[in-house]
């Protein structure tokens, strides 16, 4: 997977877990095309605390284009921002 760290718009579900569950996100590509990607499965989530900056990293998979592809999302807690970290 390649590191992208692209800011995305996200719809997430705050339930009884200790972390928000990402549901689907919208991504802008270079040609101004906005794609909505639905998260099919979340394999794992892990909190990182690099330099004290807490973030949750999710390893997921979803259908992008025609294929089922794996990717990693990162949620930066201090800023409430979601990123497509790796794909």
């Amino acid at each position: 997977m390649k590191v992208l760290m692209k800011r995305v718009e996200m719809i997430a579900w705050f339930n009884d877990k200790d972390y928000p569950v990402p549901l689907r996100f919208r991504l802008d590509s270079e040609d101004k095309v906005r794609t909505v990607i639905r998260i099919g499965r979340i394999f794992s989530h892990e909190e990182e605390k690099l330099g004290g900056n807490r973030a949750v990293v999710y390893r997921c998979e979803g259908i992008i284009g025609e294929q089922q592809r794996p990717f990693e999302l990162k949620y930066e807690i201090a800023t409430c921002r979601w990123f497509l970290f790796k794909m």
Partner: protein
Amino acid sequence: MSERIVFHIDVNSAYLSWEAVYRLQHGSPIDLRDVPSIVGGDQEKRHGIVLAKSIPAKKFGIITGETVHSAFEKCPELVMVPPCYPRYIRASDSMVELLGKYSPFIQRYSIDEVFLEYIDTERPFMEVATEMGRRIREELGFTVNIGIGPNKLLAKMASDFSKPDKIHTLFKEDIPEKLWPLPVEELFMVGSRTKKKLNGRGIFTIRQLAELDRDYIHSWLKKPGLLIWEYANGMESSPVRSGAVPLKSVGNSTTMPFDVETREEAHKVLLAISEMIGLRVRDLDMCGSVVSVSLKNHLFYHSSHQRKLNIPTDSTNAIYRVARSLFDEMWQGEPMRNFSISLSHLESNEFFQLSLLGSQNKKEQQLDDVIDRIRLKYGQRSIYRSCFLYSGIDPVIGGVIMEESYPMMSSYL
């Protein structure tokens, strides 16, 4: 084993490492620590200086404190990043939080240094120190040096031996081998002036200082001399202080990017600095009764004057008036580069003594209060004194962080 064990934990290239970690977390393909890089001050407003450097940058001879310009001359491919203090505070907090689990006696000495009193009798200290270093590296992403000794002085000296990511011990029996061969200026509290004095009498190593007769050094350099003599002999016994150290003074200074040549301009700079000092001291709910002004002219010659006030003050106008008067006393008409004001003899605002000038004080207090609140709500630039319009001088000068008041960078342990 009744000997104390004190740890000194020191982050390697703090500002730079913390910036490197942030960038990696945000997907940067390079680790700043692996390339020649520096954290540099704002190069646009004034001549920036190197605030932190990476180990590869050190190999080019770049030192902390030199100008960014000269750093680039030594290494044209240098990567420079601007400072970001909130990021550093967050990183520092995370380290202190992690270390706090190991002992209740923890002293935050500066933004990147912590003293810790090791009191666990179950686990060997070396094992714990190794774990601390590993956990900081793995969980927080940056490396530290850990110095271990029977007091803060020796622990702090030890952490400064080879870097990065190392643990060093310096106990009493190690002093002759590890501490004494070092040049005397490496000793904590020995600065360039003391070094010159010592060198002048043939003292070049810490050993030579330690072997001096106690009465001799006391009669020559008095109390400070005795202090460094004790340090050279590893004698130091201050406790690891967990509480906050009471702040003794609040000061701000600035080195202007141009020579200030008129009295009017100088007064404006002093007013801008007074604004920041007033802001800070009111935020701390304190007031002070000694105002001190320090100046450096275009040749960087230094002079200072101070005055004790009858009544402690926290008012920007009051601080400014005294600073202006002190400046007028000192100024010989030459171009000035550096201005510094300090308000000391601080005490709590609570028991504010009233004086005959009661109503004047009250009005100024109200004015300061309103201005503070407007600035808090709408930003620092939302309101300022009209004399600064088109003046080319910042209306509020000095200060780096407004959110926290850490008593950083103490000169004493």
